[in-house]
């Protein structure tokens, strides 16, 4: 489905960068280098990577949420800026003011109140449409965030006004500690459809498939100027934030078998994946060290 094998290796590399970035953050957290909280994307990488491959960072817009590092890295490839921001350094993309879940750089935005980002993204799509920029806006939300009413207000606005926006629901089956069945009734994709929005549901962690379907959906948004609603079935391998893991070990093990880094293994060249792994290791470690070396934001320097 991808045009060349190179592309798949590229997607693999992007996923691995996210994985190693997040794992490194967790190490920094354990080592006390990082305060506050952080929500890792480990296990969900195929979503960010498969989708952002179709976006142009100079033109298109992403609005993401608390679990935003994967989206940011896939869109910008800016490891140092993100490390520095999460670590509260002056060199962070928001000078350390935002921290893990309040990011902004050029066409990428996140905020930490569930759901509240969706109308803002919708307004951005309206602005892009009115200005004829040709941009597509992608807004990422979790399954739990479908509890928020503004999401539906925005679905209605986007459909009513024909806005170039794609709503991506990353259904990882939990909202913090709460399994989907304790917080959601009915069907996720029907919720998009009820507002007259074209909806697709993808029950795979295969980045190639996601890339393919996302490409069609984003292409349709781009040509029709109408919204789209994409539901991804996924799973996070780490705990919600830095807290305890409450999920069933067997369930986690079962889902780990669908690790997006593994499910495409037989389509990858072992020598190249090794090279990618080594390069990624180096890049992430270097980015971490560069970020750590920068001054902490707000401390007066001698």
């Amino acid at each position, binding site marked *: 489905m991808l045009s060349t094998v190179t592309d798949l290796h590229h997607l693999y590399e992007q996923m691995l960068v996210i994985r190693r970035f997040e794992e490194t953050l967790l190490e920094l957290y354990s080592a006390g280098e990082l305060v506050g909280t952080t929500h890792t994307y480990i296990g969900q990488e195929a979503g960010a990577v498969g989708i952002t491959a179709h976006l142009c960072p100079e033109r298109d*817009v992403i609005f993401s949420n608390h679990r935003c590092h994967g989206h940011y890295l896939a869109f910008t490839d800016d490891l140092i800026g993100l490390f520095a921001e999460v670590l509260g350094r002056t060199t962070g*993309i*928001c*000078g350390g*003011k*935002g921290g893990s879940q*309040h990011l*902004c*750089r*050029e066409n990428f*935005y996140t*905020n*930490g*109140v569930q759901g*509240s*980002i*969706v*109308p*803002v*993204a*919708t*307004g*951005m*799509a*309206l*602005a*892009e449409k*009115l*200005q004829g920029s040709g941009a597509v806006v992608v807004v990422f939300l979790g399954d739990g965030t479908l509890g928020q*009413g*503004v999401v539906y*207000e*925005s679905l*209605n*606005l986007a459909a*009513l*006004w024909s806005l170039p926006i794609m709503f991506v629901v990353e259904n990882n089956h939990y909202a913090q500690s709460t399994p989907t069945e304790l917080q959601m009734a009915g069907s996720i994709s029907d919720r998009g459809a009820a507002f007259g929005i074209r909806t697709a549901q993808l029950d795979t962690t295969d980045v190639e498939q996601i890339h393919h379907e996302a490409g069609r959906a984003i292409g349709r948004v781009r040509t029709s100027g109408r919204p789209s609603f994409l539901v991804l079935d996924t799973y996070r391998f780490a705990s919600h934030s830095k807290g305890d893991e409450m999920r069933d070990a067997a369930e986690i093990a079962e889902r780990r078998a669908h690790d997006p880094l593994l499910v495409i293994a037989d389509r990858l060249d072992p020598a190249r994946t090794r090279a990618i792994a080594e390069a990624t290791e180096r890049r992430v470690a270097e980015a971490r060290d560069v970020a750590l070396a920068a001054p902490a934001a707000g401390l007066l320097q001698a």
Partner: protein
Amino acid sequence: MALARTLERRDDVYLIGEDLLDPYGGAFKVSKGLSTRWPERVITTPISEASLFGVAAGMAMRGLRPVLEIMFGDFVTLGFDQIVNGISKFRQMYDDQVTLPLVVRMPMGGHRGYGPTHSQSLEKLLMGVPNIRMIAASEYHDVGGVLEAAVDDEEPVFFVENKTMYGRLNERPSGGYIGAMRVRETVSPYPALTLSGNEFAPAAATVVTYGGMLPIAMQAVTDLILEHEVFCEVVLLSALLPLDLDPVLESLARTGALVTAEEGGLTGGIGAEVIAQVTGQAWDLLRTSPRRVAAVDGIIPGAPALERSALPSVDDVVAAVLALRRE
């Protein structure tokens, strides 16, 4: 018509809100005619206030200047999350990478018998929100000019209107006077007006007010002169956030006594912030206890006589000024 002028003047201005289209032109008719002339730039919306604040924020961050009409200011509560955790944060939290040049028009106020959910003056709830401006128009202000300044502002502006103003004509100073009162107006996009009597009668108090309370405050000042021979200065603010304190302090330097008058409820009101700033910065100017005039804390009832007794009146302002003198 200030909105027409801004639409004419800048092509990045968009009006959004409920029921804005012609022939209706908005619940208080403020956008009448505009959708006919600028059909692409007047956007009527579903009843989705919470999202509309977010939509305006998104538009502003991507290069437009939305002017959002909230049909009744009472519904600004629906946007509090978008205001507090979005509009007031984005610029600073994103380290100045974005600006939010947007205007939210909020018709506030009672005296129309609309009942508890359509009569409030809720601007006081925004006094605790940082990084926004709050501007109140009054009948003595160049309302159009102030609104145009708000549209040109790089910061988000919450623009307080009062429903009673829609039915009345504006009155601007002419030759430095409005009626018998001398008027000084600050040079500012959001001016304050200081109204004073003749120079020979020293003023006994400064009445700080804004917006829809102006006619009540002016009537009280007139009554005080005619019935009690007490002269007051009135400082009519337009900038509530950041609070335009200087004209207040200047007047207090002359009068030494402060009364605040607002239509909203007493507790947690704008008067409290005025008093805290005045006592914090110019303690020595005050010779007596400051007093607040405001609505009774509670609902604004529907029945006219009940509504009248909940809202601040001319007599309340008169009584507050006279109480100062007795101290």
